[in-house]
């Protein structure tokens, strides 16, 4: 099981390649086209990262999130959530880039294999930019009222953060 997870990347890519080859896809050409799309994605998010990274770096350096974490720590400790992830949880439903920047700060500072670093990665990997997605869908459908959709989606996010902290504590705590 362990070595299987270690080999996730090559095994997965190999399996996808095999499937594509069986369907007669030109592997090299398709991957080149996909890679070009990836470059465009990175070029597109760089401006957002350039605006958001300094702000998040500033916020973390100012010590305010620590203050927030300390204020919330009685609550977060009871729930078993690492206090360092408070900022990430606040940003996650609003902005994907800001959450990515906050998570990478946590991962860099606490280490990728620390409990806090892993919890941050699981949190961001198992959630979406809720408010943004909801705004896009309702705007595209031309529906002005959203009834219970946003509260339910935010509750799902909360469940996601709590379960991320819980499963990480079980696996690596």
């Amino acid at each position, binding site marked *: 099981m362990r070595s299987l997870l270690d080999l996730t990347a090559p095994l997965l890519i190999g399996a996808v390649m095999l499937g594509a080859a069986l369907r007669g896809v030109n592997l090299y050409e398709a991957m080149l086209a996909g890679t070009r799309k990836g470059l465009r994605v990175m070029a597109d998010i760089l401006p957002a990262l350039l605006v958001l990274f300094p702000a998040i770096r500033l916020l973390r350096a100012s010590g305010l999130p620590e203050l927030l974490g300390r204020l919330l720590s009685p609550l977060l400790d009871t729930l078993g959530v690492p206090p360092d992830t408070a900022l990430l949880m606040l940003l996650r439903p609003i902005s994907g880039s800001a959450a990515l920047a906050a998570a990478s700060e946590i991962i860099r500072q606490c280490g990728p294999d620390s409990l806090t670093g*892993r919890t941050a990665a699981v949190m961001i990997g198992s959630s979406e930019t809720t408010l943004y997605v909801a705004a896009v869908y309702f705007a595209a459908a031309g529906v002005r009222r959203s009834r219970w959709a946003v509260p339910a989606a935010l509750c799902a996010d909360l469940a996601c953060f709590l*379960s991320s902290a819980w499963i990480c504590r079980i696996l690596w705590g």
Partner: protein
Amino acid sequence: MRGIFPKGGVIRILISYILLAVYLLCSLCSPALGTASAAGAAVLEGTQEAVSFCLVLTGSVCLWSGVMELLERSGAAAGLARLLQPLLRRLFPRAAGDGEILSALTENLSANLLGLGNAATPAGIRAARGMARQSGGRPSDELCTLVVLNTASLQLLPSTIASVRAAAGACSAFDILPAVWVSSLCSVAAGLLIAAVLRRLWP
């Protein structure tokens, strides 16, 4: 990781105010907290960090998007769609009556599972438009459920955050996968459960 780069007008305005609040609050509070010098240096460090983060991440994001392209061209989404149809008929009984909406729904869900954000959003929007048409522009229960499903992450392979972990020197970037799946399941289950309760209380 869909929606990294927000386009929605309301959300951009919200982020603008948050940015303003961050700069003002930090400038005012950091002297009191004794972090003024660190905060002063942080802004310019942040720009360098954004560039190096982007550079470090580019390689693996590009490789994964190459793999996603393979998946898309080999028609994996269509294969998965056939498996998902019975589930969708139960979740969206009214919309499933319309063949066009059902196919948009299955495309949306399977592309979400495979992490094909480029394919998932247009299909989801087609389904949402179809549902709005069915209910005469009202936010029907099924439309709200679709949004709840799409705001929970269904992606089986969170490749971006795995790349971030790999770049930070994780011993095994993907060893978070089982935890991500459990947590995704919990969040989808919670979302659908709350939806089932709220649809009765919130007409």
